[in-house]
């Protein structure tokens, strides 16, 4: 507990530096002092003279997308930690388990078909889709054997993902105009371009709330180390904790997908890397993964804007390009450890 303060301070500094980089770097390079002046003007009326165009870029464009990137990264990494702990499966992750695909289908249904007649927001549709997809994947895994092993759950997840992606593609082809289809397809690959302040006010609280719920249950997550029966005999109400935390993961995933589309590998790579560094204790792993996810996605977003001049690569493509090889490296190094 005495070490909590320096670590939190270091985490805060790292996050602030990353946010600064996310705001300053881009097609129009801004100096850190301009960024500071705009933020100071906005936050406490400092009254610096700043070019209104720079002011607009910083406040309405870069700051919002960087904050949403941080929230998404933190949220998805937290989801990865929960799913890996509860399913006792090192490969569990919202993207690989079909949650993201289900959320995409749900959101597209609401956007294209007007499902729920306005009562259901994009995030609501995504939430329903994510839960349905996860239920389907677990049923499929259960049906493939009474004691489904790790690989079977992931195979079921891939089957679920494929099904929901096909459903999404079908819906787009059937119901979307060419213009809509282009927009949706770009969003599906993971896209931070469209985010403005309302998205920030949705993503940031949801990521923080998700992290808080998980931290509250950190000892329960630890208790799953030796399996479900072991957790139960350590006094964990297994069903209730599983239901609550998986619903929480589905909700966080759904909100993130409805804002930025399906971004993969954050929930896989970040918790894995940090588990190797810090060990399995969730009181350290959860906040570290949230921070790591935030930094990772901010960096991925910067890359997505700067890799090709004048073009934005979908951020989901960047995370997959970085995430897949890193994951391969982790696999190899884990094998060497044994």
């Amino acid at each position, binding site marked *: 507990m005495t070490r909590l303060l320096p670590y939190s301070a270091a985490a805060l500094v790292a996050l602030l530096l990353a946010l600064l980089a996310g705001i300053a770097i881009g097609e129009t390079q801004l100096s850190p002092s301009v960024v500071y002046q705009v933020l100071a003007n906005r936050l406490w009326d400092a009254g610096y003279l700043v070019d209104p165009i720079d002011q607009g870029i910083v406040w309405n464009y870069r700051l919002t997308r960087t904050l949403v990137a941080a929230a998404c990264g933190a949220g998805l990494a937290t989801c990865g930690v929960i799913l890996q702990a509860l399913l006792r499966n090192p490969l569990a992750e919202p993207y690989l388990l079909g949650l993201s695909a289900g959320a995409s289908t749900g959101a597209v249904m609401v956007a294209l078909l007007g499902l729920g007649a306005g009562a259901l927001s994009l995030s609501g549709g995504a939430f329903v889709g994510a839960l349905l997809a996860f239920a389907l994947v677990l049923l499929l895994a259960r049906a493939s054997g009474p004691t489904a092993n790790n690989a079977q759950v992931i195979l079921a997840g891939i089957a679920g993902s494929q099904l929901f992606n096909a459903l999404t593609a079908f819906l787009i082809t059937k119901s979307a105009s060419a213009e809509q289809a282009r927009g949706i397809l770009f969003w599906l690959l993971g896209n931070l371009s469209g985010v403005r302040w309302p998205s920030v006010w949705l993503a940031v609280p949801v990521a923080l709330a998700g992290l808080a719920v998980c931290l509250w249950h950190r*000892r329960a997550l630890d208790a799953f180390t*030796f*399996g479900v029966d*072991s957790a*139960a*005999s350590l006094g964990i*109400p297994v069903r209730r904790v599983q239901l609550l935390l998986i619903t929480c993961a589905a909700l966080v995933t759904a909100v993130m997908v409805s804002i930025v589309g399906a971004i993969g590998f954050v929930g896989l790579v970040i918790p894995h890397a940090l*588990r190797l560094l810090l060990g*399995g204790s969730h009181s350290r792993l959860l906040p570290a993964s949230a921070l790591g996810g935030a930094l990772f996605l901010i960096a991925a977003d910067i890359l997505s804007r700067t890799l090709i001049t004048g073009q934005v690569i979908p951020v989901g493509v960047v995370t997959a390009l970085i995430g897949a090889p890193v994951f391969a490296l982790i696999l190899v190094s884990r094998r060497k450890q044994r």
Partner: protein
Amino acid sequence: MNIMTSAPPVALLACQGLGFRVRDTQLLYGIDLNVNPGETLGIVGPNGSGKSTLLKLLAGLRTPSSGSVYLLEQPLTRQPRRQIAQALALVEQQADTHDAISVFDAVALGRTPWLSALAPFSAEDTAIVDQALADVDALHLRQRTWSSLSGGERQRMHIARALAQRPQLLLLDEPTNHLDIQHQLSLLQRVQALPVTTLIALHDLNQALTCDRLAVLDKGRLVALGAPLEVLTPERLLKTFGVHAHYLTDPFDGACILRFRAP
């Protein structure tokens, strides 16, 4: 019907008419058992006789198909998991992890039922974990990682974790399985010296002779219950285990030991 009037038995842990089935297979039939405070009660029986299943039911990890379990005279199904875990600890036969976890952290999981979300891990908790490690003669392994332990060492850590729960009742499922002979004997000795009531499934019948009482399971039925020498008669051993057996007396200390022959 006298369900309402029949009082639950006076025992730390008890079951009445306990049955369990998985789909069409009946694994346990109407088991009645009382565990008395302070005793070491051994469960023996051939492979597949239902020893592990009985322990899981008694620990509340499975819901019985018929009958009920009473912990401290209260029906188990009406008690919250946390309350059960404060009174009863189970060491399973196979529980392992691929997580990079230290021995201390693995044993410290035993404190889970006593900690809340806001309470930090206190110096007292640390002392209890260290005592549990000392109880299984493993204080020197404290800083090791789980993956560096041998099978036998892992088994001792599982028992240390159960002890860190500070339970009144310890349920052990064949705890000596992976241990070398020295650790088998020292572990049994330590378990029997602990101030907790112990229910222990055992394979080695000579080791089972050291228990206070024995319960013999045969194809899911409780076929004998009582003092070891009264229960493990040559006739019983032939009928349940399918071996001829007779008792020898050790000239060194006068102890009875069993010698087996294939039929």
